[in-house]
């Protein structure tokens, strides 16, 4: 894994998704010091490409590839892209895969995405108050918080810590400090979801390259090694309401394959569409037991300088959610961390990172989940 790039986000953009993806590809090529024609694999994710899929983009960008994928898994797209790309380069089907996600955000894009998100959503969610993901996750959050005795203050610690991290990220959309008092006093959006539990939809793009060690060596590129990944969809379908994600099914394999323990990780990047979902991931990814997420965040400092550096760029909550690029945000920032390129958000001596993804609230729960552990060259 190499060349993490982020195209700085904009709250609204008059450009198309293809423009943002094009900027990311251009940045990838520049950063890796390769030619666009060296890219022989492409994996894209976007909500706002209109009728295009990956194949249309090859002609659009003048790429001739022998491996191509379009991944519509929302917040789990980056982990899925990484898994597929890694297997493809390992099998020598392809040498250099560009994994890229980008979305634009026109003034009405977000509402249109909500209205047309999925068939079940269109039939059986949107007509019920059109609260969008906020309302769907509000139901999950309310049940989770009641079941495990979690308070808003517990959840708020995650958002507040991420804002502190974001203040060091010059590209974060949120640029003012956030206190727990401000978090608690925020206006309700869909109880118990309040303003600072919500991400800011925006335009942006994120990308990275996947290749074999020897390819990277021949290009002289610093790389992170992929140690393990998991992916799971529609897990625990019999749970009446979602209190855990698919990670819980495969977490043992995640650490066993990597040969590390949760405590070995230097930096963790979870999928934070809502802080309560991050708390769920702390449990499901093995940092604490189910129901102990609140205690875990009370006992740890989640900021860059803390004992559990988490979502170091500010995450989607403070950097912004650029559609499908939101899936990539944590993974790309994690890559920068283990490559020692994170600049102002760099965690000292970070060499081992975990990034997770979560996505597709098709009806009443997020269906897709995934996670990856990777190590920098220093490890």
């Amino acid at each position, binding site marked *: 894994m190499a060349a993490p790039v982020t195209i700085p986000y904009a709250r609204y953009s008059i450009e198309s998704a293809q423009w943002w993806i094009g900027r990311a590809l251009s940045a990838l090529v520049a950063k890796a010091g390769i030619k666009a024609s060296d890219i022989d694999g492409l994996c894209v994710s976007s909500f706002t490409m209109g009728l295009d899929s990956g194949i249309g983009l090859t002609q659009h960008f003048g790429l001739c590839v022998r491996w191509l994928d379009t991944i519509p898994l929302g917040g789990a797209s980056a982990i899925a892209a990484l898994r597929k790309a890694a297997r493809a380069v390992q099998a020598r089907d392809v040498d250099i895969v560009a994994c890229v996600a980008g979305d634009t955000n026109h003034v009405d894009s977000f509402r249109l995405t909500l209205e047309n998100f999925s068939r079940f959503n269109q039939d059986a969610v949107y007509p*019920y108050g059109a609260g*969008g993901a906020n309302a769907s996750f509000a139901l999950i959050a309310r049940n989770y918080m009641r079941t495990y005795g979690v308070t808003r203050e517990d959840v708020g610690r995650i958002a507040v810590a991420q804002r502190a991290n974001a203040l060091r990220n010059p590209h974060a959309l949120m640029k003012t400090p956030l206190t727990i008092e401000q978090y608690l006093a925020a206006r309700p959006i869909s109880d118990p979801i309040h303003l600072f539990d919500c991400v800011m939809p925006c335009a942006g793009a994120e990308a990275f390259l996947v290749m074999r060690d020897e390819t990277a060596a021949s290009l002289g590129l610093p790389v992170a090694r992929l140690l393990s990944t998991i992916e799971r969809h529609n897990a625990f379908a019999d749970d009446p309401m979602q209190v855990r994600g698919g990670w819980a099914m495969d977490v043992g394999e995640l650490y066993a394959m990597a040969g590390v323990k949760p405590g070995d990780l230097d930096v963790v990047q979870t999928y934070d569409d809502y802080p309560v979902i991050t708390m769920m991931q702390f449990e499901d990814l093995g940092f604490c037991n189910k129901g102990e997420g609140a205690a875990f965040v009370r006992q740890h400092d989640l900021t860059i300088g803390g004992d559990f550096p988490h979502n170091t760029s500010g995450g989607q909550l403070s950097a912004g959610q650029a559609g499908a690029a939101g899936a990539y945000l944590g993974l790309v920032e994690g890559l920068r961390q283990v490559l020692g390129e994170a600049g102002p958000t760099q965690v000292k001596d970070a060499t081992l990172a975990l990034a997770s993804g979560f996505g597709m609230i098709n009806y009443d729960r997020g269906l897709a989940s995934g996670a990856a552990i990777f190590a920098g060259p220093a490890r």
Partner: protein
Amino acid sequence: MLQRCEACGAFAYPAREACPACLSAGLAFVDAPRRGALLAETTARVPSDVYFRERAPWRIGLVRMDCGPTMVAHLHADCAEGAPVLMSFQLDKSGQAVAFARPEGETPNMADDRQWREMTADPKFRRVLVTNGRSLIGQEAVAALKAAGAKTVFVGVSEPWRPFAGEQLLRGQQGIEVVTLDAADEKSATDLAADIGGKVDILVNTTEYVRPGGLLDRRGTGVARDEIDQAYLGFINLAQAFGPAMRMRGADGVSSSAAWVNILSVYALANWPAFGAYSASQAACLSLSHCLRAELRPGGVKVMNLFTGPIDTEWFQTVPPPKVAPRAVAQAIVSGLRGGLEEIYVGDVAEEIRQRLAANPKALERELDR
């Protein structure tokens, strides 16, 4: 109504094409047990859709049905987390069937719930126009709507100087206003709409023009013209006079314009040769009602068609029972409006025709020819 797998019996929701328990394609909609429990609720305060933004905060929840599926549902204000609820599908303002959860037991003023009223066309607090007060059905409708809490019932009477039976039930009564209306006369309809068009929340079209006979036993088109004038063109006059204002007032507060009611013969669905030309005029009105429904939908105004068999009035004297009492029609109007329905069948004949038409339309056609 939920889908149930014909192979394994599992219920499924949202609607889909294969059973999630056994992948069978045989998923039929059946009446499902209506009980469930409210797992979690939320109040959407900042909806993204303009309709709900206007009506926010809006309360929804996730209900686990006793029969299996979980359903996102609109919540009655008296629903509590953890408590049992009864589910029904209601037609929302866009005409879509949506799940609505109510408490299992009755609660005080249950029907006055703000979100429930958005799904229904309850006459309570509303102003209603009953178009023909000369008929028994019209008079019973006025009484039933008043009893249901309508704020004002306007009742149309043609040639008001001409006395008619039951007149004393309408004149001088609190909350009832007799107005001049001859639906078959375009000018009469337009004049009345100019006076009260902006105040009509529910219009109940009680136009009745029943004459026996089909084609061969009549000479010429005179009677058929009258049937068309009264029922079909009368409907058009009323729709053109009152429809536009009703459509514009569909979101006018909690007592907005809400519904248009047609009383149609069930023989609109299948011709009854003994009253064959009349059946045809009713079929024309039925077709027109679907057009009206589509045109009123953008304003969130429902069209309810009430199908009835022969009514116990003088023009059906020769028809043997069972016949429908005008009071039963009036009560069905109120219950249909309270439920926010689009179609309602009143009486045994109408219900039988409905079932037989669904079972075997050709057999019904043949059997009505007796």
